[in-house]
C-alpha cells in the first residue's frame, strides 16, 4: 500500500506502483484539473507540486510519490484565489485554457522560491510548459503582477 497526501488529505493506493501520479489523480481520485498533454514530461500540462516542488506528474510514479505531499490545482487555494490565479484572471491569460493549470502550478512554484523573478528567470522556469494557443506574453505579464509588480 502506498501512502501519500493529496491536497492535505491522506490517501492510500494499492494499485500498480509504476502508475504515473497523473493517472492516479485523474482516473482514480477524479481530480481532473491536472492535464495529460504528452505523457513524457515535455509539455508541463500535468504539473503539480510534490513537497512544494513543481513536478511533472505524468513521469512521476506512484512509487516515487509515496510518503509525499502532493498539491494539485484543486488544492492550490481553497477559493481559487492564489495570487497567481488572480493575476491570471487580471491579465486574461487563458485562451483554450488546457495548459494553464500546469502553467499556474509552475508559476506558483517559481514565485515561492523567487519573489521577483527577472524575465530571464521567468523564461527559464516556464520553458518546460507549452502553450499551443500562444499566451506566453500574458503569462510573463501575469507572473509579474503576481510578484507584486506592474505590467
Amino acid at each position, binding site marked *: 500500500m502506498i501512502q501519500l497526501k493529496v491536497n492535505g488529505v491522506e490517501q492510500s493506493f494499492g494499485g500498480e506502483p509504476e502508475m504515473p501520479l497523473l493517472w492516479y489523480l485523474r482516473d482514480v481520485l477524479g481530480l481532473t484539473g491536472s*492535464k*495529460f498533454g*504528452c*505523457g*513524457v514530461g515535455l509539455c508541463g500540462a500535468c504539473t503539480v507540486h510534490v513537497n512544494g516542488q513543481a513536478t511533472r506528474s505524468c513521469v512521476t510514479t506512484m512509487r516515487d510519490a509515496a510518503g509525499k505531499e502532493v498539491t494539485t490545482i484543486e488544492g492550490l487555494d481553497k477559493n481559487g484565489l492564489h495570487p497567481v490565479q488572480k493575476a491570471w*484572471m487580471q491579465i486574461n491569460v487563458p*485562451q483554450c485554457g488546457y495548459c494553464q493549470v500546469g502553467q499556474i502550478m509552475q508559476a506558483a512554484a517559481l514565485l515561492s522560491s523567487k519573489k521577483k523573478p527577472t524575465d530571464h528567470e521567468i523564461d527559464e522556469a516556464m520553458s518546460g510548459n507549452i502553450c499551443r*494557443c500562444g499566451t506566453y506574453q500574458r503569462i510573463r505579464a501575469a507572473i509579474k503582477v503576481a510578484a507584486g509588480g506592474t505590467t
Partner: protein
Amino acid sequence: MSPIENVSRRRFLTGGIIAAGALVLGVRYYHKLPSGDKLPHDTNADHATLHPNVYLGLDPDGTVWIVASRSEMGTTSRTTLPLIVADELDADWKRVKIEQALGDSRYGDQNTDGSHSIRSFYDAMREAGATARFMLIQAAAQQWGVPAGECETDLHVVVHRSTNHRTDYGELARAAAKLPVPKREELKLKPKSAWRYVGKGQVSYDLEALVTGKAIYGMDARMDGMVYASVERPPVLGGKVKSYDDKEALKVAGVHQTLPIEPFQQAPAFQPLGGVAVIADNTWAAFQGRNKLNIAWDNGPNESYNSDAYKNELRATSHNPCKVVRNIGDADAVFAKAGKVYEADYYVPLLAHASMEPMVALAEFKDGKATLWAPTQNPQAVQDIVAKEVGIAKEDVICHVTLLGGGFGRKSKPDYVAEAAVLSKKMGRPVKVVWTREDDIKFDYYNAVASMYMKAALGADGKPTAWLQRSVFPPIPSIFDVNAVYGDPAHLQQGWTDIPYDLPNLRIENGPAKAHVRIGWLRSVANIYHAFAIQCFTDELAHAAGRDPLDYLLDLIGNPRSIDFKGVEYPNYGASMDAYPWETGRLRRVTEMVAEKSGWGKRKRGKGTGFGIAAHRSFLTYVATVVEVEVNDHGEVRIPRVDTVLDAGLVVNPEATRAQFEGAAVFGTSIARTGEITATKGAIDQSNFQDYPVARINEVPKQTNVYIVDSDAPPAGVGEPGVPPFVAAFCNAIFAATGKRVRDLPISKVGLS
C-alpha cells in the same frame, strides 16, 4: 452517472410542453424547431418562460439563458456570440448564463472552423436579442397602458420615462411570453451609440473555471461504469491488421480485453482508421496493455511514400506547366523577351496541429442511441459519422460538446469520436478513447505539404512586368476522394488566386499531387504556404530592384480598387462579394499603419538585427505584420518585437481579438522555426514534442503589439488571419538580418549559422 456539469443541464420533458410554451421564430441561421413533441434534446433556454428562439430564454427571476451553439477552443466565441445577444437585449451580463448546445441542426451550421463564427452569426445573434427586447417592451407598455413607442430599455429593465415606470425583465417574462413573436421587419436594432458590449468586449465566461481546474474538457469527461480504451492504429494510411497477438497485453493489470476496429472503406473521411483497441480500468493500464500488443500489419500501397522523394516530385511538377487557374495578359511573351527573370522555389512541409489536449471522446451506446461527450469543433459531423458507424439514425446520436483543449482545425474531424462510439457499441458499456500525444502526431489530418514555384520579370522601374506562380500540394478533398489531386477553389482562393497585386501579366497555376496521408484544415490552411511564397518572393524582388521592401509592397498592391475575379472561381470564404469585396485599399491601409506603428525605417538596427514585412488578406480580414529579429553568430534567432495591424471590419471583442493575434505570432513561430512532419515508408517519423517541437516561452516574440483598425465594415475572421503574414514577415526579417533567404521551411532544417 456523473455527467459533465457545465455542458447542459438536460431536462427530460414529456411531449407537448415545448409546443405549448415555446415561441419560435425563424431567423437566418437556425431552423425552426420541429413541430409537436418531436424535440430530441433541449436546453434551459428551451424551457424558459420566455423563449422566442433557440438561442435565448428568460426566466421570471431575470436569468437570461443564452445558448452557445459553436465550440469553444480558445477563441472566446462561446462568450462573444452570446455577448451580441446580450447587447441587443440590453441584458445585464452578470445575469446571463451561457449553456453549450448539443449537436443539432436547428442551430444551423455548428462547424467551428474557418474563422466565421461572428461573421455568420452576428445578424442572427442581434435578431435573437432584439426579438426578446421587443416583446418585453410590448409587455411593459400593455401593463402600463402607454404606447410601446414611448418605452425604452435600460440595463435589464424596461423604462417609461414620463410616468417613471421601470420594471425588471424577469417580472415581464410571463406577460411577454403570451405575445406574438415579432417579424424581423418589426425589429429595431440598437444604434451603435447604444451598444453596451459589442466593440468593448468581455473576458471569457469561463475564465474562473479555466484558472481553477474546474473547466471540463473532453479529457475530463467521466461516467460511472466507463472503461478506458487506447487504440493501436495502422502506421501507414490504409493499412490493415493481418493478425495480432494480445496474450501479453491481457496480462497487464487492469486490462479487460482487446477489440479490433475495422479499417475505413474507400476514402478515409472521418471514419476510424482501424486497428486494435485495448480496454482497461484506467488510461494508464490501457496504454500499457497496448504497448504489449503484437500486431502484423498489411501496410498497403502508401508504404511507397517517403517525404524526401515526395518533395522532389512536387518541385519537379511545379517546374512544368500546370493547370491554369487565373490568367491576365501574356506572361510568357514578356518572359521570352525579358533580359533577366527571377525564379524561386518555396516549400512548406506537412504540419501537425498538436493541440494541447490530444484527441479524446467518451461514448455510451445504449438502447439504440449513442450519447457522446467530445471536444469537437463539429458536433453535427459527429452525429453523421457516428450514425453511419454504429448504424442508427442521426437523431439518435446525442453529442455533448465539452470545452476543447485547442482545436486548430483538427477537432473538426471526428474520427476519434467515431472510435469511441464503435467500441461502446461492441462493449455494451461507456468507453472513453484516449489518444496519446504520439497518436495525435502520427494520425493527424496534416496541413498539406506544398511546393511553390515563382517567376517574375522586372521592368526598368523595378516593378514586375510579368508574374508566374505555380503551387503543387495534395488537396484536402483527397480525404473524401482518393483520386482528388488538384487544389480546389476553396483552397486555391486562400492567398493564391487572389494575389492582390496590380500586375499587367499574371498567370497562376496549380499542379497535381496525390495524398498519402490524411490532409486537413489547420489554422489558416493554404494561406500559410501561399502567403509565405508570395510575400517572401515580393521581398526578394524588392531587394533585386534595390527598393525598400515596404515601398515595394505598397507599389505592388497599387491603388485602392476592388479585385475583379471575372473568369476565376473565387468563393470569397463563402461570403458575398457585395458584402465583402476584396478591397486593396484596406490591405494598403494596414500596411501603411504597421509601417508607422513599427517605426519601419526609423528604428536603429543593431548587429544581426533585421525587420521584415508582409501583408495578407485571409478569412476576409486584412493584416500586415512587421517582425524584428536578432540573429547571433551561432545562428540563434530571437524575436524582440512584432507589430501587427488588422482590419477585420467590426470587431465585437477587441480583447479576444488581440489575444488571437498574439497567439497567431506564436503559432507562426512554431511553423517557421521547427514545424515539419515527414514520413518514411508511409509511416510518420515524428511522435511527440521532442521531434515535433512547438514554440516555448523563450523562443517566441517577446512583445507582440496588436492594432485593430476601427471599422464599420461587416465583421470578418480573427482566429486565423494573423498566422500567414507573420511567417512571411519573420523569414523576410531573417534575410534582412543575415542575408540568408529562407525558402524551405522549417528554418531549423536549413540553419542560419
